[in-house]
């Protein structure tokens, strides 16, 4: 390798190193979750309709979660599967309160599902069932997590 080639390659390598961190950073910025209020997220799910609290939605979650990063949540809707279009989970004080949505078909057999969600702090968890007639019914439960700790 002569001096000219060495300098060219060094310049190219330097340019690649300088540019490369910008690419993933840009992608990360786009991939960040959207910060929104509970009301905004609820409006997006229900298209402005107000969910009604109902005994038909059974939300099972621990009153005290030992680990806020993996809080088990089970939801059952006491309705025939044909009447339930979707189940939405919300956590009102999370960065993005819209935690997850499960869209159901009669092939699912039963309007039930269980998952684990992350809670940033003590807050209310909501299970909202979207019914076939376009109405929404819900249940909520306060779940407490640790105030905090040091790593």
């Amino acid at each position, binding site marked *: 390798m002569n001096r000219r080639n060495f300098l060219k390659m060094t310049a190219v390598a330097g340019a690649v190193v300088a540019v490369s961190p910008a690419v993933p950073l840009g992608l990360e910025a786009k991939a960040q979750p959207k910060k929104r209020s509970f009301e905004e997220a609820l409006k997006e799910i229900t298209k402005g309709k107000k969910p009604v609290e109902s005994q038909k939605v059974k939300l099972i979650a*621990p009153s*005290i979660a*030992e680990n806020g990063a993996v809080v088990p949540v089970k939801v059952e809707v006491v309705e025939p599967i044909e009447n339930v279009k979707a189940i939405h989970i919300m956590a009102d004080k999370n960065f993005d309160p819209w935690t997850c949505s499960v869209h159901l078909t009669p092939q699912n057999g039963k309007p039930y599902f269980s998952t684990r969600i992350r809670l940033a702090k003590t807050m209310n968890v909501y299970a909202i069932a979207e019914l076939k007639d376009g109405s929404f019914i819900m249940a909520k439960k306060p779940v407490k997590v640790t105030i905090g700790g*040091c790593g």
Partner: protein
Amino acid sequence: MRKVVFLLLIVVSSSFGEIKWYGLNDGFQKAIKEKKLIMIYIYSPKCHYCKRMEATTFKDKQVQEVINRYFVPIKVRKCSENGMFVKEEYGYMGTPTFHFIKPDGNKIKGIFGAWPKEDFLKILKYFYTGAYKTKSMTDYFMEEQ
């Protein structure tokens, strides 16, 4: 006579006035002798949440009474020799960490983080009522409305 009664009152009130922390060896000996559960508290002097818990939850009379009655409380500093031993033997999740141990030395469960007094009392209840023998902590609190 009045002086004796007054002194007795002071002794009785001070005995419930704070958590009686034990050292590692003394604590285990006491737990074996009295067949009590052990609660090991791993703290760090620089930990904000440890200070917060000590200034609030541990100052609560009900918390103090429950801990002194049902547990042998052991307090170890994270970086001390005993702290290193506890971390290696029972694990460590950060500060504060609480390990609940049977008198025979077997670990029941470790809990991470600072808790307000109402929640900490519920957590303590899970252990001292023996509920841990039949169900996991998550299942126990799932049943609570």
